[in-house]
């Protein structure tokens, strides 16, 4: 019997070792996997995050754009301006983070940037940790002007500083309220108006005549035409049976290339495009950043493309219509703003950025963005020439709505046909002051008709608001 009792004891010893082994599996091997079992572990993760007061997000003047408030129910994230959701993103225990809230999460939540020893001590003592603050380049006042200008109309406005690449305002409508994300998510994720899409950085539109900026710069730098080239009004241009109307001619039989841009003469640009050829046009667009997503830490951006189907540009009518801004062109408002930024900045595109600094409450800086050139898009003389053409466009051409008393403005309108019976998308890109540009603005409003009336007045509001406080 004693032998049997010993065997029984041995059996239970083995059984208990089995318990210990499996327990070790859960607490050591599978611990991370369990910790991230969402949403079932949401309560525990939330409690973990409650120990950290998430850092604030500030605008360029120190105004708070997003901050965390303590409430009896726990912490809640507050956004000063819901319309900034396409810049800041949102922070939700249920739906996670997006945009700046996501890209700079480790700083905001205090994981990165704090002295590791201090962090360990606070963790051990269960003391509250304060995350670092993120400083953006956004100007909240300008942002509000841009949002007012867009109104309820779907579209986007991008405003940036061409000399530094700082994003001053980035509006995308429709938007949604990040203060109520948990409550509205089921609705907005299904909405036909697609409020989740950031139209400013990731919305892809046909650019219309604003693309003539790329064609003109490429043709001038490639010596296909010169600054003195003139065009003659010969009526419709027929390319392999495809009629291109001599729309928008100035009231003269012969006119210089500058006026072809200012008055947006499609046939003239079709002609230039055919002379350039598909290969050089695509290469020229690549110098502006077409074919790659612009780098913008904190905000996901989309690629702008010259054509979407292979071999499309081998057809002459396709090449001709691409050269004046139709065809299969797909561009983002951000890319068009950067395109004109090259004109305003002597041919160079500064890498855009929206987060300038991360710092803690004591002023210690953990992250600092520095300006750098992203693309050398065109020569300095070509930039100067296109600037003059843009001034003519504003002073005499279709962009007259962008005039500002006492300030010289350069700009280009666009009216992008979308096919069928739908109204075209209205575009405007412009910058001011011409002598020392401090702002570039790109506006697109979906199905708002002509660029001259559908987008230019909105851009003018943004330019005026900025220049009122930033006259050199």
């Amino acid at each position, binding site marked *: 019997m*004693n032998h049997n009792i010993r065997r029984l004891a041995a059996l239970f010893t083995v*059984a208990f070792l089995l318990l*210990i082994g499996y327990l070790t599996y859960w607490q050591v091997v599978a*611990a991370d996997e369990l910790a991230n079992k969402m949403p079932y572990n949401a309560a*525990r993760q939330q409690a973990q995050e409650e120990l950290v007061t998430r850092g604030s997000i500030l605008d360029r003047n120190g105004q708070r754009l997003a901050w965390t408030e303590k409430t009896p129910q726990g912490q809640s994230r507050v956004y000063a301006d819901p319309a900034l959701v396409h810049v800041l993103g949102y922070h939700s225990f249920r739906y996670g983070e997006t945009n700046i809230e996501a890209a700079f999460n480790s700083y905001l939540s205090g994981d990165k940037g704090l002295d590791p020893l201090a962090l360990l001590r606070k963790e051990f003592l269960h003391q509250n940790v304060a995350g670092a603050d993120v400083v953006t380049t956004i100007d909240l006042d300008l942002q509000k002007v841009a949002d007012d200008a867009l109104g309820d109309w779907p579209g986007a406005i991008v405003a940036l500083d061409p000399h530094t690449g700082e994003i001053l305002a980035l509006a995308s409508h429709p938007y949604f309220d990040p203060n109520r994300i948990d409550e509205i998510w089921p609705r907005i994720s299904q909405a036909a108006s697609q409020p989740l899409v950031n139209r400013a950085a990731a919305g892809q539109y046909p650019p219309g005549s604003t693309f003539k900026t790329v064609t003109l710069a490429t043709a001038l730098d490639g010596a296909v035409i010169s600054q003195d080239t003139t065009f003659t009004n010969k009526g419709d241009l027929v390319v392999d049976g495809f009629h291109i109307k001599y729309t928008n001619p100035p009231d003269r039989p012969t006119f210089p290339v500058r006026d072809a841009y200012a008055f947006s003469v499609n046939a003239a640009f079709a002609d230039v495009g055919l002379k350039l050829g598909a290969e050089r046009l695509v290469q020229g667009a690549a110098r502006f950043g077409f074919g790659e997503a612009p780098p913008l830490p904190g905000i996901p951006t989309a690629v702008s493309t010259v054509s979407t189907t292979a071999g499309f540009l081998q057809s002459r009518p396709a090449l001709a219509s691409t050269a004046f801004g139709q065809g299969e062109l797909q561009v983002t408002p951000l890319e068009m703003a950067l395109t004109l930024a090259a004109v305003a900045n002597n041919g160079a595109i500064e890498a855009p950025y929206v987060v300038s600094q991360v710092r803690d409450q004591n002023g210690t800086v953990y992250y600092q963005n520095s300006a750098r050139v992203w693309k050398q898009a065109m020569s300095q003389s070509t930039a100067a020439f296109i600037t003059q053409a843009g001034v003519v466009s504003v002073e005499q051409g279709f962009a007259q709505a962008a005039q500002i008393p006492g300030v010289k403005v350069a700009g280009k309108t666009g009216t992008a046909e979308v096919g069928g019976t739908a109204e075209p998308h209205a575009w405007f890109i412009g910058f001011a002051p011409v002598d020392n540009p401090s702002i570039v603005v790109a506006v697109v409003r979906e199905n708002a008709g002509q660029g001259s009336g559908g987008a230019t007045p909105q851009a003018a509001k943004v330019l005026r608001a900025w220049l009122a406080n930033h006259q050199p």
Partner: protein
Amino acid sequence: MSRILTARPTGRFSELYLLMWAGPLAAAGLATLSSVRSGQVQQAALQPAIVLLVVLLGLHFWLSFIGSRADQLLLPVAGGLAALGLVIVGRLDPDSLWKQTAWVGLGVGAAVVLVSALSEPSWLKRYKYTWAVLGVVIAGLTLVLGRDPHGGGASLWVRLGPAMFQPGEILKVLLAVFLAGYLDDKRELLSAASLRVGPLKLPPLPYLAPLAIMWGLTLLLLAVEKDLGLALLLFGLFLAMLYVASSRLVYVWSGLAAFGVGAYVIYRFFYYVQTRVHGWLDPWYDPTGGSYQIVQALLAIGSGRVLGTGLGQGMPTLIPAAVTDFPFAAIAEELGLAGCLAVVALYLILIYRGYRIALAAFDPFQQLLATGLTTVLALQVFVIVGGNIKLIPLTGITLPFISYGGSSLLTNFAIVGILLAISDRSARVET
């Protein structure tokens, strides 16, 4: 070692020294909880620890007073676990802390009574059929009067005056006593010829009959009471004692097979059992429904990692019925793997001492009884800890000395009392 601790004629200094740890253990835990909750250590929060120490010392001095030579490790280990139990109940359900303290006191009182009454433990054997009848009556009462106050699915509680009792807890002690007596009587028949039915060689009738009765009884418990845990525990106890008495593993295997077949049939027909088994096989299939409890328990266990979140710093109350069903998961979250290893080690010491007492016991009846009672403790720990960590399907068994529950504390301290009496009896022979 055992000889040194148990054979000394006078003085129970090892026990006294080790007991001195139990009070401070509870005090430290309760003080931590108090400071986490209110930012300071409130003296009132420490009172249960003082009561515990006084009660345990009371039993110690009683044992010294009557000159007991009983094992000196049992009481400190059970007391240490009870101390941890107070801390965990205070953590998970502060309103029940004083009740738990009172039950520990009553449990120790029961141990005092048993140690004093059983100076000759073989006395129990004479009334073995009385215990069996008592057990059947209690089981029957539970079947008829059983209530389910917590809505957990099993009707195991019987109202007795102001308190709710779980008669199943006492059942396991009564069964161990009866089986020890019965098997001790029939041990002589071990070598008897097997019962032959045609080509089949069956165990002799004295084994076959109780085997069949136990099989039926436990499956009935499973079907009517839906209590997988108690069924597993009672049947496991029966098989273990049968094996120790008969040395015939074949009985164990055939018993397991019969139980398996019966359990499978019940599994097919009872939704409640299916839920538990499905939750065990794949908890992530229905994490917010049928397997919510086990999923929350696993998340708690995982979040504890090696050192735990610290007492009062985790969120074990997210687990439904944590204080009765998942105290181990709560320990795993707040005290971590380190704390769990300490708890499992304490149980291993307790079980090891229990089997030591069985080996050294005065007569075969007491040997069987000590084996049975120790096995009850071991099985409970394995079934509930295994259920908490999803090693086996979840059941409603309590974690001895730690889970909240009066019947459970009373019964487990009674087991300690009987084991103390048996070890005292054997020590008196040695000298």
